[in-house]
């Protein structure tokens, strides 16, 4: 009975975390799409490297991420590797949320 409860709890935690991650991804996608509706963020993987996102876009996105997730994005984070794709942005937000 205790084992079953433990498994159930860990499953609940796992699904909670998964839901949070899905929510976070959706929210980031919403922010990105609002800033640049002309870009397909689900498929682009070189957003900064290929000049799709410009510094003006990045700063606007940072302001929104900062506000939505209550994180502090320092200038050090404003590099291509952190903004080249939706995955990269999500990974950065996750990392900074954990650091806060």
């Amino acid at each position: 009975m205790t084992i079953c409860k433990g498994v159930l709890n860990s499953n609940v935690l796992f699904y909670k975390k998964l839901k949070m991650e899905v929510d976070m991804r959706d929210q980031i996608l919403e922010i990105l799409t609002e800033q640049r509706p002309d870009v397909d963020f689900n498929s682009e993987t070189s957003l900064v490297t290929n000049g799709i996102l410009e510094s003006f876009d990045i700063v606007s996105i940072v302001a929104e991420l900062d506000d939505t997730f209550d994180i502090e994005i320092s200038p050090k984070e404003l590099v291509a590797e952190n903004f080249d794709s939706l995955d990269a942005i999500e990974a950065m937000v996750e990392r900074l949320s954990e650091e806060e």
Partner: protein
Amino acid sequence: MMAFWSILANFDLTYPSWKFFALFLPVLAVLWQLSPAKWRRMLLLAADMVFFWSFSGILVVFLLYSSLLSFGIGLWLKKVGQRTDLKRKIKGKLKKKILIAGILLLLMPLIGLKYMDFIGLNLVRLSHLFHVGFDWKILNLAVPVGISYFTLEGISYLTDVYRESIEAEDDFLSIFLFFSFFPKLLEGPITRYGELSETLNVAKPISGENLAKGYQRILWGLFKKLVIADHLAPAVDILFQGNVLDGSLSLAAGVFFVFQQYMDFSGSIDIVIGAAGIFGVKLNENFRQPFFAKNVSDFWRRWHITLGTWLKDYVFYPVSVSKGLMKLTKRVKQLFGQNVSRLLAPSAALFCVWLCNGLWHGPRWTYIAYGLYHFSWIFLENLFGDSFSRFYKFIKLSESSLALRIFRGIKLFLIVMVGEMIFRADSLSFGLTLIWQIFTNFHWKVLIDGLGLLGMDVWDYWTAAAGLIIVLIVSILKERGYSIREKLMACPVPVRFAFWYAAIFIVIVFGAYGSGYDAAGMIYAKF
């Protein structure tokens, strides 16, 4: 010994002078090849010192000061970063304080030597407005060459160490070489330690390929500088003398100066990149066909690229994500909505960038106005950029159509030209008068008569025009990803030799020399 230093102080080593590329560089290259590998960096440092001394003599102490300061502060930042007894946040705050102190100390010589008279004189003007007695005695201090460049390089080094994107260097020779590397001392490109140290400290023997490629690039630079820019220089000097001109001649002044400036600066950068390349050192490109840009923002991603990226990384981003601005953005979002707040942080940071850009060029109101002029265009582009794209779609004009590209090209050229006229004029009022004349007092006949009085004969006009057409063709090919040099490398040896000999011949025959030629007149060396 003193005689040697005084001779050196009068030895013209500007990039387009023969003493630089036909004496200084070959002698250094021979010594480099003869030296044991471990001595090459010392040899390079000696060459750097000779080069610096030939322009600024004892002011080399300022170069040493910036190098020592950056070296010391860099190590201090590293030491604090390694401390385990401090909490992350406290450590971060301490590092930030050290960084700010380091940047202020780096800026002190630049501000003290270059901007004090400007600040003092403007304080006098301000004191007159408020009827306060304030006087300023002009100091006219000597400014070491390249101080605006190596100060920015010092700031980038310290900031990169602070951000932990590079490790602090513990070998002072490496740092001193980075600051004093002679090819980029006068006109940049502005380098970052993380990029330059990779090739600068290797000090490999000179390869035949590097030597050939380096001199080919130098030749291309000399062509731009001597065949085009220096032919236009006398006319530009006359047109910007300060006399109010007919609109047609004002337009000629603007057009000539844009070409002169572009060919002078990009030609010098070609010489710089070529000279560094001989010794296996890779410098970043500073130009990428700027006049093929689609708008002003794009232009600045292609013109003086290293200054633009420096300002982006060390001014634009830090200002735009600063705590104060982020808080203000949130407040504005609550009050006016997201559409307004989204523009606030980047626009405020953009303003700082262009103020810095203007001020970096020197202590003059014309430079500040030039910076703010470009800020206005880029701000408007960010505000209305989408509207233009929608309008082109509405009238069914493809973004890649030739008509739109030509329209954009002319529009961009005119925008840049107006900015350059403000930049070149001795005073803001004179610059604005010249621009005003184009719209209010324009007569073609005056232009036709006046062109003969600008210190250029028919031959000079044809030479400059032919040179510009060659540059245009090369630029079109480069923009399409076609490299003439690579194609030439694949040609048989006699063809290659014939081509390069012809190129040398063209530069010697068609270059602007003689009494009107001023090798020291490299526009961007004075910044």
